[in-house]
């Protein structure tokens, strides 16, 4: 699965490219609209992540030109503009979806997955960590075969941690995934959810799966 990232800022471009590669995509990055047009026209890509403001040719012009030529490749637009005007413009021009900057990488990933172009090897619906099983298709959670009832937020937090099993996820990352980054709770909601999750997942077990990393966040690991 080849993704072309067209983004004029190097840091952002590299961040998206590397992030995608870590998640199993094959990604290239260019920083110019015209160059992007040329590469997409070559037909070597399955998916495009396209910035709005680009040198050479703006993102909207690129989308319009591609659609005029009958190219159906899915296009996800990146924009700093969070206005309905823009969203309507982008979708009318022929973009399939958009993400507003600054975005969490998880959000970009989720949008790309929604475009239906997620690499098959990663699309397994079941996440499993040492007997803790989470089915993203049915939203069923069980440990060692015993079903666990979770509230929506508890499920989302656990899913996030299990998706990144073995890696420490900071409170802010968890918060913005389970709510969104417009949410400024003022208090640490993640701690509350983790406490509840612990009672359901780890209580009475010898082997704990949810670990606290002091001052930072949480990790699910064996």
């Amino acid at each position, binding site marked *: 699965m080849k993704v072309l990232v067209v983004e004029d800022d190097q840091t952002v471009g590299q961040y998206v490219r590397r992030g995608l590669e870590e998640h199993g995509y094959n990604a290239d990055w260019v920083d110019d609209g015209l160059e992007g047009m040329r590469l997409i026209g070559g037909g070597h890509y399955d998916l495009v992540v396209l910035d709005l403001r680009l040198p050479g040719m703006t993102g909207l012009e690129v989308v319009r030109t591609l659609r005029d030529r009958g190219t159906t490749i899915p296009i996800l637009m990146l924009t*700093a*503009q969070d206005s309905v005007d823009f969203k309507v413009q982008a979708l009318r021009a022929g973009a399939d979806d958009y993400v507003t900057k600054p*975005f969490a990488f998880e959000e970009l990933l989720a949008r790309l997955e929604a475009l239906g172009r997620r690499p098959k090897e990663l699309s397994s619906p079941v996440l499993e960590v040492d007997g803790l099983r989470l089915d993203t298709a049915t939203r069923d959670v069980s440990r060692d075969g015993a079903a666990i009832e979770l509230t929506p937020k508890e499920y989302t937090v656990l899913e996030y941690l299990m998706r990144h099993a073995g890696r420490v996820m*900071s409170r*802010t990352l968890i918060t913005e995934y389970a709510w969104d980054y417009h949410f400024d709770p*003022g208090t640490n909601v993640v701690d509350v*959810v983790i406490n509840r999750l612990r009672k359901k997942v780890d209580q009475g077990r010898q082997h704990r799966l949810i670990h606290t990393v002091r001052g930072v966040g949480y990790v699910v690991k064996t």
Partner: protein
Amino acid sequence: MNSIRSRLTLWYTVALGATVLAFGSALYFERRGSSIEELDVRLSLEADFVSQFLSQTYQVIGRLTEPDPRLPIEIPAAQRPRQLEATPRAFLDGVSTFLILTDRLGHLLYMTDTTGATRVRPIGGLGHAPLVLSEAAVTKLLTFAGPPIDQRSGTLSGDLVPGPIRYLVRRVDRAGPEVGALVVATSLANITFGPAQLLGSMLVILPVILLGSFAIGYLLAGASLRPLQGMSNELKAITDGRSLHRRLAVPPTGDELASLARSANQMIGRLEQSFDSLRRFSADASHELKTPLMILRAGVERALTNPETPADNLEELDRVLDEINRMNEMIDNLLTLARVDEGRAALVRQECDVRDLVTDLAETAEILADATSLRVSVSMPDEAVLLPVDASRMKQLLLNLVTNAIKYSPEGGTVSIRLADQNDVVTIAVHDTGMGIPAKDLPHIFDRFYRADVARSRTGERPGVGLGLAITKWIAEAHGGTITASSRPGRGTAFSVRIPRPPTADSSTED
């Protein structure tokens, strides 16, 4: 009715009324003055005639007077008051004007018979009525005739006479030593009849004229203001924030209205320019502020998710990420409000069950409350509450209200969220048992950047910048609804959002 129209009409009427009045009174006084002059000429002619007759009679007969026969015989002839002889008296009786003849000492020689019995002779021209004078009036006239003067004329009015009279006194020299002066008089009532009639007819005509001018003025004002009204409606439509590219039609007349339209168009042009630059500014600001945030975020997120980053750094990185989110939220709110001001903030409304939004929020509220030992109660109808809303904005509204309620409630308090659907109005009410909002702050809590009392929230929490409730208010109003707050200090605060269901059950509408 518009006030300019009535004011113009009033001015027309007043101006016309004043003109008519001025014209009428000028006419009246002019007419009156010339009538008196005319009368004086007649009186003078009459006096000429009488004195000429007396002089000639004197020259022919040699005397004009005789001792008054009514006086006792004993009085010596030289001392006897005298009176006019029968012949000239008979002649003077025939004169149409009121006459008095005196001797050189001012004693009465002859006076027109004032009983009126013999004097019912209207004379031609002025059509004088017979003049009947009281004794006092005659005495008064005699004082005018007393001193030897050549000629004098005047008007006598007041209590002495029944109406104003015009008189003329003339010295008579050549009618013998007995005759002194002649007084001719006539009533002014006759000649004032002309101007008085004028005044009378004016009093009748004036209201008619005023009424007519009022009607005409009203129609004229209406006609001349109609284009203005049209222009005003057009302007209203243009300045709603989305139609600034349009211009007023300039009437081809080249009159004041055309110049007004041109000025208005210039103004709209400048407005359009400044709106355009504002629009560009908010687009640029989005880009200029958010691109660096994106770059920051990209770096921080990569470092934060990199397994090789030392744990010591993770805490700092997470704090930076939190700040980036805060800043992003603030920029979003500012830009949203900027767009609201431009009239360009829009909603994407889609029919959804508001209960889902509340349920989604309820868990968050409950988690938040758990962290601060609060109780949350949620109530909502059993049936779906379908309403076309902008779901993400609605979530923002609910979250703002609930986080506020939780933030300002002391430990152990209760926050209740109630959703109700009645008579096509969906009400969302959020109550808390917090410290309340002082009455002086209550009217301002929806103002931008208004922070009633920073110390109000629990210690250790950072206050917001004061945009949350302004945004919340906008969201409620953009849905065609209202938001109200009521509070009792020490008891708690209640926010109530009421959103009417649009009349048509259109599933997706854009606002």
